[in-house]
């Protein structure tokens, strides 16, 4: 379609400078992180600092009859107690796309754990005790918990008087957004199918469970504004939502990124940001808020749980004829990112396969369950779990090898998506499956490797010593997935980079300043590499991220290396032009090559493409500094048609395949994942070590939701039953297998350096691969994830 704008994909500079792209340079923040000096948002401290605490609703859906804060206010050490009535302006709601989330509950609470009041005190325990003294009287309302209760004729509306831009096209006000995709004629194509399989799948609610709890420090400024030190995924998005509630212009809300202890989508929405600022402005003192783990489970959105209904058909020869599917995502009480998740789930619902005739529908519900929004994989994860189960079923029905059946139907460059969008860069789906299958299998009965005595640590049940190998069966499963990269559906998805070059201590130094949230992914490492490659310097300083520079967009959707990396590259190119200009002005008369040759910046020098040195950068920049701040955008996308789902909606696609090997204690229903091999196309690995780290990390989050991770919401009360790491389990190092990774680098000509966003794809295929392996071991159908022991033993 359109040509890439701004930055050409080829490497415009030789990568002759040490520490440039393609090398596994080490993290610039590594030393601080291993010495304990790295300042996370929860580590902030300020003279006269107060502690903030949030009081949350104890019920899921209720009218608030009264709130009495007098006892809390009377407690010594308490400086402020605020409720809805104390909000300073007319703007009392916020939200990523739809501003439906109250800063503090007003008249009604819509989910368990909704913020009702906030307290500031001189000790966190005082703040907690004060919050506990606030008396809230609720009159409970019926709860909406699933599709049936949400769309029943007499259903209570979770949000009355909706006026958002989706209300016009949804079939019911308890549906946030609906996206159908119709292409070809699925009903007619079904007539050509020799085999049809149907399935109904359930995906449990997963939590991001980043380790660094929501936290931050708000410091009142002398000009009446506030400075917020915060862990987030997108500073400018926070700013846009915070400032109006405080009644401040954006320039008076200064934001600096603090150390972020992981994110995975859970910091895309606001948590304690506005609350800390409100308390700081009210008391005139710095206020710090740090959630504990219990509160963290209530303080951010989760991955949408889903019900997925699929029908797949194929000819006798094994060619897919059609897919019909319906995906029902539970968005919980507030919209958060639900509309975009619906767009992803529907447009990626059939996976990386060629199917011309499809009939797809995805919806997100409003319910009284916990709000759900962004999490790594964003709508594509739930779909992948279901369509990969379907592909196995269909292969079995056909009597075909499961991998070969996938390869036979695998998309490739040029395939048309259900949305009508052609896949216009490499899509090595069959090759990834081939690679992952070709990896050597782990030896059988590894628990006996060390001697006759079984090493229980290598067996299902582990240190609980539940088996010495009896009843243990091995299974193998495969899966492959497709994820979009970047913000889709016409979103203006740009980033900004400010790059400066100057001489410091006799050496040329580049400084890169962006608002990109480094959440652990290694963006700061890559920015320095890009600057070295483009500017030929070794010394690169990464300026702390803040709102003193333009927006970098979100650290999500696998987009930051692509988009902010692209912005850094683009700004470096503009700086380079200026530096060359400066060189020509200063030294142009000394050598004709200044005017005639292609010039490069390499190893601290300006050289011709033939390698002749024209000048030292230090001499060219002597007494000068060159600085550029510029925005950069990837090629534009467009919205999906609301009726047909057609449209050039996505920027780029990303593919990964997994092979899982599991061992199952069939008597106790315990699963041990022995190995999770992954093959992924990354376009170009800017930092191979970080790339592998992303793939392994994503893989294990997929493993988690396959066998253990699920927020349990009581179906009667809509209350969260397990908000702790005691009851919500994430994989430990004992639950985690070896993860061999095969990295393929097929350039996408539309992207900077040909790179592909990589962070999410491995989270997709990991879960269905593990499920397939467990099915392979047990012969059970297993239509839900996570799988618990009782699903395997039938007890």
């Amino acid at each position, binding site marked *: 379609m359109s040509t890439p704008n701004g930055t050409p994909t080829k490497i415009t500079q030789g990568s002759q400078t040490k520490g440039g792209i393609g090398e*596994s340079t*080490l*993290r610039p*923040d*590594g*030393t*601080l*992180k*291993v*010495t*304990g*000096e790295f300042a*996370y948002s*929860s*580590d902030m*401290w300020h003279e006269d600092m107060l502690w903030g605490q949030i009081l949350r609703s104890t019920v899921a859906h209720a009218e608030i009859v009264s709130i009495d804060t007098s006892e809390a206010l009377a407690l010594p050490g308490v400086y402020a107690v605020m409720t809805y009535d104390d909000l300073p302006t007319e703007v009392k709601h916020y939200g990523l796309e739809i501003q439906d989330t109250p800063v503090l509950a007003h008249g009604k609470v819509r989910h368990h754990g909704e913020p009702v009041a906030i307290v500031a005190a001189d*000790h966190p*325990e005082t703040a907690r005790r004060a919050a506990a003294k606030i008396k809230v009287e609720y009159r409970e309302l019926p709860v909406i918990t699933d599709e049936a209760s949400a769309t029943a004729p007499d259903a209570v509306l979770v949000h009355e008087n909706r006026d958002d831009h989706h209300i016009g096209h949804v079939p019911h006000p308890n549906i946030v957004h609906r996206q159908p995709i119709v292409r070809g004629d699925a009903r007619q194509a079904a007539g050509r199918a020799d085999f049809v399989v149907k399935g109904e799948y359930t995906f449990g609610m997963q939590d*991001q469970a*980043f*380790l*660094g*709890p929501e936290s931050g420090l708000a410091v009142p400024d002398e000009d009446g504004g506030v400075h917020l030190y915060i862990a987030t995924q997108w500073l400018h998005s926070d700013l846009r939502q915070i400032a109006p509630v405080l009644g401040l212009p954006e320039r008076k809300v200064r934001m600096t990124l603090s*150390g972020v*202890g*992981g*994110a*995975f989508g859970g910091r895309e929405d606001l948590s304690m940001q506005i609350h800390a600022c409100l308390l700081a402005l009210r008391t005139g003192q710095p206020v710090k808020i*740090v959630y*504990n*783990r*219990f509160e963290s489970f209530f303080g951010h959105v989760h991955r949408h749980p889903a019900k997925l209904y699929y029908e797949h058909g194929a000819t006798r020869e094994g060619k897919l004829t059609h897919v019909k599917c319906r995906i029902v995502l539970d968005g919980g009480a507030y919209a958060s990112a639900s509309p975009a998740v619906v767009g992803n789930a529907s447009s990626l619902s059939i996976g990386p396969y060629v199917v011309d005739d499809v009939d797809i529908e995805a919806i997100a519900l409003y319910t009284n369950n916990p709000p759900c929004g962004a999490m790594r994989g964003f709508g594509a994860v739930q779909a992948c779990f279901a369509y990969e189960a379907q592909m196995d079923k269909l292969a079995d029905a056909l009597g075909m090898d499961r991998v070969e059946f996938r390869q036979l139907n695998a998309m490739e460059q040029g395939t048309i998506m259900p949305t009508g969008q052609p896949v216009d860069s490499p899509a090595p789906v069959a090759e990834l499956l081939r690679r992952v299958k070709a990896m050597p299998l782990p030896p059988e009965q590894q628990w006996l490797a*060390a001697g006759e005595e079984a*090493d229980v*640590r*290598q067996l299902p049940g582990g*240190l609980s010593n539940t088996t010495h190998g009896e009843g243990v069966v091995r299974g193998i499963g495969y899966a492959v997935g497709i994820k979009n990269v970047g913000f889709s559906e016409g979103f203006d998805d740009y980033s900004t980079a400010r790059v400066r070059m100057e001489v410091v201590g006799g050496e040329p130094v580049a400084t890169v300043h962006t608002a990109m949230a480094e*959440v*652990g*992914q*290694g963006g700061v490492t890559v920015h320095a590499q890009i600057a070295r490659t483009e500017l030929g310097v070794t010394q690169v300083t990464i300026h702390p991220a803040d709102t003193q520079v333009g927006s970098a967009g979100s650290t999500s959707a696998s987009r930051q290396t692509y988009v902010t990396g692209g912005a850094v590259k683009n700004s470096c190119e503009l700086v380079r032009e200026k530096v060359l200009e400066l060189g020509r002005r200063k030294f142009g008369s000394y050598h004709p090559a200044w005017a005639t040759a292609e010039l490069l910046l390499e190893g601290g020098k300006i050289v011709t493409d033939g390698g002749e040195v024209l000048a030292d950068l230090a001499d060219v920049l002597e007494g000068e500094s060159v600085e550029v701040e510029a925005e950069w955008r990837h090629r534009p996308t467009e919205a999906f048609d609301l009726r047909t789902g057609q449209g050039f909606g996505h920027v780029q696609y990303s593919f990964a395949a997994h092979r899982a090997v599991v061992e199952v204690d069939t008597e106790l229903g315990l699963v041990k994942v022995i190995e999770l091999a992954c093959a992924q196309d990354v376009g170009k690995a800017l930092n191979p*070590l*970080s790339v*592998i*780290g992303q793939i*392994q*990390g*994503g*893989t*294990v*989050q997929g493993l988690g939701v396959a066998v253990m991770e699920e927020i349990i919401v009581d179906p009667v009360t809509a209350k969260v039953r397990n908000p*702790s*790491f*005691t009851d919500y389990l*994430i994989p*430990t*190092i*004992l639950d*985690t297998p070896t*993860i061999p990774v095969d990295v393929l680098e097929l350039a996408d000509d539309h992207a900077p350096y040909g790179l592909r966003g990589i962070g999410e794809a491995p989270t997709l295929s990991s879960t269905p691969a593990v499920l397939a392996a467990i099915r392979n071991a047990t012969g059970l159908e297993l239509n839900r994830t996570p799988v618990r022991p009782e699903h395997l033993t039938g007890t």
Partner: protein
Amino acid sequence: MRVNFTVNGRPQEADDVWEGESLLYVLRERLGLPGSKNACEQGECGSCTVRLDGVPVCSCLVAAGQAEGREVVTVEGLADYAKHRSCGSSRGTSLQEAQDWAAKGHDSQTGEGSELAPIQQAFIDAGAVQCGFCTPGLLVAADEMLERNPNPSDADIREALSGNLCRCTGYEKIMDAVRLAAARQGEAV
């Protein structure tokens, strides 16, 4: 109440400590040592792991008063602790020995001037640090394991670190880092 104990080789005194305050809280909020982390505050994640008289513990579960008169080593003191250990006996550190050393400061902006313990260097080199929130606790736990068991098998490493959650890395690079530190330690002997 007042609590006196030794942190990273230096005597420390914390005043006005509440009954319910944990060792973790006192370290982070009263002594200016926020290196130990607070990912769960309920003994489930290991991010707060410190050594109490040499033994790794979750400092969020230790009441501050229980540390009275005892020796605490946190991630901030790990490098000096390891250095001291390598000068002395190869197996463990006696209380007496531990009392003779003290952590030195360095530039908190850049980390410059810090000498790293072998396990810290290995975490950086192996790519075992992403967000880094799990790192301090893992380092303390891994360092202690290598002190006890300089030649660990993979299963030993997994067992020793099974109380330390990491959400970013998938643990593979953490395994690499510990193997690397063990190998380097072996070469050095």
